[in-house]
């Protein structure tokens, strides 16, 4: 059973939601969960067949962080033989938090931005649920 989660953001470039998802993935992976409990999956690297990224989706619990209904991370993980254990929709999380994506910058958000923190907290909550389920099981 996995003892880590792979945070797999969609990595779009054209919407603020994808920028939020990217930054939230950094925050969750590097600071809130740490590398001992999480890996950070890179979609283009997974597509290109980089072994480390393939190992992440085959060996970890996979949390897809999607910015829209296209769910590109889900499709890619499935193509590469992995399984997505949970999906977080950034647009839904922002809506629940009354944050309007149109008000967010496209290029970059700091890790302490409320939108980034909100999505990162959702990733962490989901990761702990998956990892605790493993420990309880």
């Amino acid at each position, binding site marked *: 059973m996995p003892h880590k989660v792979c945070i797999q953001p*969609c990595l779009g*470039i*054209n919407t603020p939601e994808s920028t939020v998802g990217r930054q939230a993935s950094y925050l969750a992976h590097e600071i809130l969960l740490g590398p001992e409990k999480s890996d950070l999956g*890179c*979609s283009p690297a997974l*597509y290109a067949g980089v072994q480390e990224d393939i190992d992440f989706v085959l060996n970890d619990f996979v949390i897809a962080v999607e910015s829209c209904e*296209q769910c590109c991370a889900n*499709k890619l993980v499935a193509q590469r033989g992995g399984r997505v254990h949970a999906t977080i929709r950034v647009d839904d999380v922002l809506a629940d938090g009354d944050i309007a994506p149109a008000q967010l910058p496209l290029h970059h958000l700091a*890790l302490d931005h409320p939108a980034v923190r909100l999505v990162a907290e959702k990733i962490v909550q989901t990761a702990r649920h998956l990892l605790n389920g493993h420990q309880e099981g």
Partner: protein
Amino acid sequence: MSNDRKVALLVCGGIGRIVSTVVRQAAYMAAAERPDNIILVSSGSLTGDVPQALQTARTHPLVAVDACVEKCASALVSGKQLQAKEIIFLPDVAAKYKVSIADEDRKGLSDRGMRLARKLADEIIEYVDALSLSHGRNDNAS
């Protein structure tokens, strides 16, 4: 300028390495300075086979930017049967201008990282301007 002179710009858009952050910021800079000539194509959308992204990459001259030796943008170009007019390799640009980003943070670039992004954006714009011009000439000739 007409839509016929638009160039599709695909950067690796990865998350694991600092260089991916550099190419993404360079893409935003170039697109902001050539809003009528550049359409950003998301690597994520191509991995998810989003029809609009594939259509854009197939119907416009395509410039791809690889950030590191894994060359993931090139892998997408070949894997999705696209034709790139130019492929730019960030380490070549870094070597050309002697800009090191060894101590940069992938979560957000400092002035030095943004300086390399600026150099890369200039290279991208050079290719985009040439492609836009030649595409426009071809349109006029036909």
